[in-house]
């Protein structure tokens, strides 16, 4: 068994301290593979004056050149021929550009072991059939986004009775249908089988608010759960804090926060982060997080806010070994959570970008919009 496979089969998924040596070896192997099989990756490492052999100690991982997600949006970066990639997935493409990431069979197998381990710890697998409301995209052959694939995947945690999607594909585009979702919820609430929600926190929240406004308060069947993933995306202005979200879920569905689970991941870092009972994203053994200074890109100590650099040797088919996200976050000491999981936990604070910049310089509005400003 190779090093990466061993890492992905590690018994306790939050034993980051115990897997540092193994993680380093897996990173080195992956880096060497990418360097030898991907000319573009090699050009970047050569340009930065880095070679895989320089990964000698665990601390050297921070010196490995990281690739911003923009690189995957502008260039196809595959390290294996396309016939060796049974699955390719894309980012959501907010802003028109999206990353394309390919996965080999070995990559997918690693992923499967990880999902089984992480999801099992949160006791999300069950033999009891469930109804599903997906606050996300209904799968369609034109939709390759990872967020659609993972939302669908989450409906496989139990046998399914029905699936209702909030975003339906009609006339070439996705249309939100929250009224349809509310009708389904009212129907499923009368079922004796649990109801599970999976998908974007935004649509979940909007639906709960609609129910609240209409004075509809339900007691969902025992075992019902809310699973969240995909972030607030274009609705970041409407984002509410977790406490308000949980309070509303209790009010309209009668669900305690124990029954609310949130996932975090990205197509460029397809590691399943699952929140702990205290709703923190602890770093699993498959991943490491380096928070970097927003001006110098140097690593920061825990507790300080910066750019989120995610590292994982999971994927061979695409050089997503060390990627820089567009997120701003903080890494906290694991012990400060109190849930008992020892690994540090990641808190996402916001996104990079220029906000609310006003301009009258000719042509500047277009550039600023590209950088995420509302002008």
């Amino acid at each position, binding site marked *: 068994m190779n090093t990466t496979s061993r890492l992905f089969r590690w018994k306790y998924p939050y034993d980051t301290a115990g897997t540092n040596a193994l993680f380093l070896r897996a990173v080195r192997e992956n880096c060497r593979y990418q360097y030898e099989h991907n000319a573009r990756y090699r050009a970047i490492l050569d340009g930065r004056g880095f070679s895989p052999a320089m990964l000698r100690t665990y601390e050297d991982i921070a010196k490995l050149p990281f690739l911003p997600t923009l690189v995957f949006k*502008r260039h196809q970066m595959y390290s294996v021929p396309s016939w060796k990639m049974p699955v390719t997935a894309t980012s959501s493409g907010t802003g028109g550009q999206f990353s394309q990431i390919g996965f080999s069979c070995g990559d997918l197998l690693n992923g499967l072991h990880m999902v089984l381990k992480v999801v099992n710890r949160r006791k999300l697998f069950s033999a009891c059939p469930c109804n599903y409301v997906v606050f996300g995209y209904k799968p369609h052959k034109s939709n390759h986004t990872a967020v659609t694939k993972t939302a669908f995947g989450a409906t496989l945690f139990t046998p399914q009775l029905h699936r209702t999607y909030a975003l339906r594909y009609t006339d070439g585009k996705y249309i939100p249908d929250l009224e349809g979702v509310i009708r389904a919820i009212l129907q499923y609430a009368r079922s004796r089988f649990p109801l599970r929600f999976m998908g974007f926190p935004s649509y979940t929240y909007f639906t709960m608010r609609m129910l609240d406004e209409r004075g509809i308060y339900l007691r969902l069947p025992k075992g019902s759960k809310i699973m969240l993933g995909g972030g607030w995306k274009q609705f970041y202005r409407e984002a509410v804090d977790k406490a308000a979200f949980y309070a509303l879920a209790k009010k309209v569905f009668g669900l305690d926060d124990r029954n609310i689970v949130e996932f975090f991941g990205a197509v460029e870092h397809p590691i399943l982060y699952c929140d702990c009972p205290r709703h923190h994203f602890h770093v699993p053994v498959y991943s490491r997080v380096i928070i970097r200074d*927003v001006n110098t890109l140097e690593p920061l100590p825990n507790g300080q806010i910066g750019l989120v650099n995610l590292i994982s040797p999971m994927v061979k088919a695409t050089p997503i070994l060390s990627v820089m996200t567009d997120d701003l976050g903080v890494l906290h000491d694991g012990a400060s959570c109190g849930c008992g999981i020892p690994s540090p936990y990641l808190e996402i604070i916001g996104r990079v970008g220029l906000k609310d910049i006003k301009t009258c310089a000719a042509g500047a509005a277009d550039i600023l919009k590209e950088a995420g400003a509302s002008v």
Partner: protein
Amino acid sequence: MILAGGRIYPTDEQSHILETLEETICQTRMNETLDTETVIDAIDVLGRRVAAGEFDALIGSLDLGKAAEEMLASVKLLSRGYLEKKVVTELGTQFFVPAHNEAAFGLPGIEIRPVPLGTLFHIAAGNLDFLPAYTGVEGLLTGNVNILKLPQADSGVTILALQKLVEIQPKLSPFIYVFDTPSDDLVTMKRLAAMADGIVVWGGEAAVAAARSLAPVGAKLIEWGHRLSFAYLSGDWQRKTDDLTALAAHIVKTGQTLCSSCQVIYLDTEEMDEIRTFCNAFLPYLEAARRKYPINDIGAAAEMTLQRYSAELESYLTGKRQAEQNIYRGFQCSLTACEDSELALSDLFGRLAVKRLPYDSILPVLRRQKGCLQTAGLLCDEEDRAQLTDRLIRSGVNRVTSVGHMSATFVGESHDGEYPLRRYVRMANVEEQI
């Protein structure tokens, strides 16, 4: 929110108000006249009340942040002295008093009667919080009925300011209507445009193009588009340390987002070596200014850092290392030594290009940006100033200032080479009856 007839209405009253708007405006135009003095009186009172701090709490509650500072700086534009000077500069004295041309050359005489254009539809941009109210005021000063469409990013200050103005002088109320219609509500935009004799549009190419498509044939289009500005350095720049400090402060403080912000620094030279020497010499000034006024927004700083890092990686992938080596980087700023001479938008936020532009090339090069030119910040030896100024103006530049004052406001200045008030009036002629 909507302001109509001096009262504030919620947005959902829009269609109701629109139903009778044309008729209401017609009544106003048939029966009422607004004279400049009445408008100036009201604005002066408002300006003094703002300066006295009467609205500080209200302005604070709008969450304007940095814009509050800008707002208060704009108060001086609300003073009687400033407005009177503006009117006299743009329209001369006694503009609205009819004049007479005696019969001559075998032709009968006429009365020349300056009148407002009629109804102005202002499509305001959000680049300055104060701008939407200001364009409305320009329309009022010339006696027009004004329909104002707020920019999406409006902070709420426009309606507030205009409502206070109408409170001070109720005679203004039939002359000002404010709507917060989004630009993509084309049906409403067209309805508003159809009522206008003049459409005043502020904004970039997209906004101007959109306004052109809305405008009914017969409506006069008055376009205040986006512009580019630059600094021009000639002679012994090295010893002018105060000016270099002021230029660096201007670049950093405006974020290069204004029409008048420096996008390119031109040197009067043909030598790339001088460009490199300048980059090395000026970078410490720019960095010092940046440390004094850092980008504190962590998301913006991160965005800039990521852009810079991505550009570096991109240069490895595209093999364009040369371009990368011409960049002189400092803390939250950079200078790029460029081979070409084109005036182009910079990367903004303290990142700009340095280019060669020898005296004889000024006109041929700048001509290529005609319609886009605004300010030239000039740093030169005193004996060359007059000649350089003349050449810059002949090239199409509309403002020549010192390098530290590129974005300063001057008494009675034109707007991109024109006097707005003149564009908001027409000259009626009446044959004199003998």
